[in-house]
């Protein structure tokens, strides 16, 4: 009897699902105010805030707009604005 390999998925393939469309509020980083501490990146449930040079940037393809980053930023450098404004 020939056995086939069980169901397998490509590693990290949820990336095909752009959860940015879930967003109601959009986090905007004020790069001037950002001290580059990385707190936002550590806590983001989507892992969608990345280090760029010595600052941080958000990949809006996946950001769901939860607001954790804005709530936890120690210098309040992130503002949540209504999507589309």
């Amino acid at each position: 009897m020939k056995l086939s390999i069980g169901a397998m998925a490509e590693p990290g393939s949820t990336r095909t699902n752009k959860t940015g469309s879930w967003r109601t509020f959009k986090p905007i980083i004020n790069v001037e105010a950002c001290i580059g501490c990385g707190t936002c990146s550590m806590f983001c449930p989507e892992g969608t805030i990345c280090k760029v040079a010595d600052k941080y940037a958000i990949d809006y393809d996946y950001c769901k707009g939860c607001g954790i980053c804005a709530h936890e930023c120690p210098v309040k450098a992130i503002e949540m604005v209504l999507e589309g404004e």
Partner: protein
Amino acid sequence: MQEELFAPGHRGCAGCGAAIAARLILKGSGKDVIIVSPTGCLEVVSSPYPESAWKVPWIHSLFENAAAVASGVEVALKSLGRKDEAKVIAIGGDGATIDIGIGALSGMLERGHDVTYICYDNEAYMNTGIQRSSSTPYGASTTTSPAGKVSFGENRPKKNLPAIAAAHGIPYVATASIAYPKDVIKKVKKAISIEGPKYLQIHAPCCTGWGFDGSKTIEIGRLAVETGLFPIYESTEGKVTSVKKVKRKPVEEYLKAQRRFKHLFESEGGEGELKKIQDIADANAKQFGLDL
């Protein structure tokens, strides 16, 4: 850019604490791991067929047998002479771990498998609609312990699985919270570096099930620790070796921020229940020497 081993695009609610736990665990473990996940929110949101959020080998067991499957993976690696290639980690919810999977877990601990079992504790069966588990804390309203005219919600205390795990005399037991990410990463690193069975319980607030805004997931997690309701500690062979001390806040600060405890502030007699919950925090503080 550092590599994210838990990819975005997963279906966790906006603000999901379990997703944060998964990210932190993988930051601690690195890529040379084989993960076993029982059924539950984390499994469901990370593996919508045919996709996977995991960038490491990952196996979905049944709801009840993650520890048994992880034991099997460990033994298989051993018998193939490939044990050095990967650490085996199980990551399960509180229902999967503390209720239905406790027998499989006890067996895994007792047989001495070299596996790190991690429970992300969101204190109920979230994936099926917020039913109480034995890890649901006293006083919480869930769909199967609803608060109402004749009930103040969950009427039994939270089961103490870290103590049960420690009673197996295993080399490492620890609690942690996603609100203290460096501590989580450090404890995962430490756990996988120790030979033998390890148990880690990570408090992972659930905005949907507990009833708070998704932006407050970390704040709520911090309050659970700061009130003494979720003590953070490590233990080796049954002896407590480190404790996170806190300047304790009254339990009301934690409870009033969540819908699941709202009735305690609104119903007649709620005050007596609040006092009982404060007593639980005080007893934790006494047992672990939590107070700064």
